[in-house]
Structures are given as structure tokens and as C-alpha cells.
């Protein structure tokens, strides 16, 4: 057991911003997400009910699409592979997340997601030498204004 020593090749990635992703929030994607969570809230499942609500259309649960940003927008595996190529250990675990929500996301919204690598640290955990990466993703609506900000920590070990 030892502390993971972060190589220079990874240290220099801190502060970098990933290619921005633009994606449209689809009704079907919201419904599939809600079903996968087991969230029966009609605002996320029932188009007619949602149409009668103050939002007027299907609402996405807070934290949709979450991490990783949908695979059709952001390829997490490619991002992780980039870190591994630069020297990160192969194992991957999600460590946790901090969200701040500013305005609700609904079907047909177009979101712009920008992910920035905030920090990369070396630690020793029960998994062995571990690298902890913190990334911050800001989701902005095309129609204007921030929708939410997500700070995610994950562990390579």
C-alpha cells in the first residue's frame, strides 16, 4: 500500500476544459431515466399530466442526465481512457457528487455542458494507491441561464 504519486502528465491536465457538449433533452430519455430510477413522479413520466402543470411539458428530474453526461453527448470512457493513457490507474469508482440547481430542465431544452478538470490528487485508500479526480460540469440552457452545476469526484485505483 502506498500513496498514488500523480505524474506530471496528469498534473498538467488540471484546469483543462473538455470539448463543450450540446444536447437536446428528449421526452423519451427523461421517461427512461425516471423508470430506471423507479421514480413514478408524473411530472417526469406522464406527458399529459406535465402539460397541465406550470411547466407545460415533461420535466426532467434534478440531476438528469447527471454523470456521465449522456453517452450520445459525452463519452466518459474516452475521457477516462485519456486519464489512463496519461498514467492513471485502470480501476474506476464514482466517489460522490455535489449539485447546485438553478432552474429546472424540461423536454426540448437544449443544454450546453462544459466540463473542467478541477483537481487531481494522489491518496492511499483501502483500494490501494488511488487517484482522485474532481471535475466540474456546468449545464447552461440554450435559451439562457445556468440550469445546474455538478462537481463529481471519481477514483482511479
Amino acid at each position: 500500500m502506498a500513496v498514488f504519486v500523480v505524474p506530471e502528465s496528469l498534473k498538467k491536465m488540471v484546469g483543462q476544459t473538455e470539448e463543450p457538449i450540446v444536447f437536446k433533452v428528449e421526452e423519451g430519455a427523461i421517461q427512461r431515466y425516471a423508470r430506471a430510477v423507479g421514480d413514478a413522479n408524473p411530472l417526469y413520466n406522464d406527458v399529459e399530466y406535465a402539460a397541465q402543470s406550470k411547466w407545460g411539458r415533461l420535466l426532467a428530474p434534478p440531476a438528469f442526465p447527471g454523470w456521465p453526461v449522456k453517452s450520445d453527448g459525452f463519452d466518459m470512457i474516452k475521457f477516462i481512457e485519456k486519464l489512463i493513457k496519461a498514467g492513471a490507474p485502470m480501476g474506476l469508482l464514482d466517489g460522490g457528487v455535489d449539485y447546485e440547481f438553478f432552474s429546472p430542465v424540461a423536454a426540448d431544452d437544449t443544454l450546453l455542458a462544459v466540463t473542467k478538470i478541477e483537481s487531481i490528487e494522489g491518496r492511499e485508500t483501502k483500494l490501494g494507491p488511488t487517484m482522485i479526480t474532481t471535475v466540474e460540469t456546468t449545464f447552461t440552457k440554450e435559451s439562457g441561464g445556468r440550469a445546474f452545476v455538478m462537481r463529481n469526484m471519481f477514483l482511479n485505483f
Partner: protein
Amino acid sequence: MAEQTYYEDVEVGSEITPLKKVATTRMLVQWAGASGDFNPLHYEEDFAKNLGVGHPIVHGALKRAWLVNLMTDWIGEEGRLKKLSCRYRGMDYPRKMKNFDEPQDGETWWCKGKVIRKYIEGDEFLAECEIWVENGKGDKTTQGSALAVLPSKSK
């Protein structure tokens, strides 16, 4: 959906209405498809074993989504979730399926929480909550906090 929760209804120590969840291998497949997280750690036995976690584990992000579910059910349509944080403290292993729809007997998870502070800031009536996911043994495998904006009867 439960009844609307108002700021005046909650006190420090008030319990968030608990939410029951049963993680199954099927649910994990469904989550992978819905979230786009195709890490084999969550569905491939040998892959999980080689990484030292024993068996495929429940996605942290799914447990996070359960906690969002816990909070939004409690907050109701007139309130909103302002913040949510969580940390994954322990591994959870899904139940296997008995048939297409039903899981085998096994562990049940509970999402729980309680109000730890209530305050008014600007024009917002806020409830700060401690939240967690508890496994079948009563261990808190995911722990976090949430900040809810609740409607007020005075407005």
C-alpha cells in the same frame, strides 16, 4: 405523490418520508442504458472480481438518483431542490432476478433523511437535510445532504 410539504410543517428533526428501493441486476442494466454509464464493473462478474469488489456493484449515480427521488417526493411540486451532495461510502450488490419482473429474496434499501436546519434567506424558505441510503444491514452506504426550497403558507 405525497401531499405538499410546507415550510411551516417541518421542524429540525422532522423525518423525510422514507423511500424504499430494491436494486436488481435488471435495474442496473436499465440504469446503464438510461444514464449512459456502461462501465462493465456494474454487469460483468469477472471484471468486478478482478477490480477487487467481488461482484458487480450498484452504480453510485443510481443511489444518488434515489436520493434525488427521496427529496423531490418530499418537497412536492410547489417546492424545489436547490442543492444535493452525496458520497459513496460502501458497495451495494443488486438482487438477482427470479423471473422477468420479480427479484429473488434479499436485501432492501431505504432512502432516508431528516431536517437539520430551517431558515429563511432572501425570499426563500429553506430546509437543510441530512440524507442517506441504508442497506439491508442498516449501514449507510451513501451519505449526503440536501437543501430544499419549500413553499410557505404565509405567501
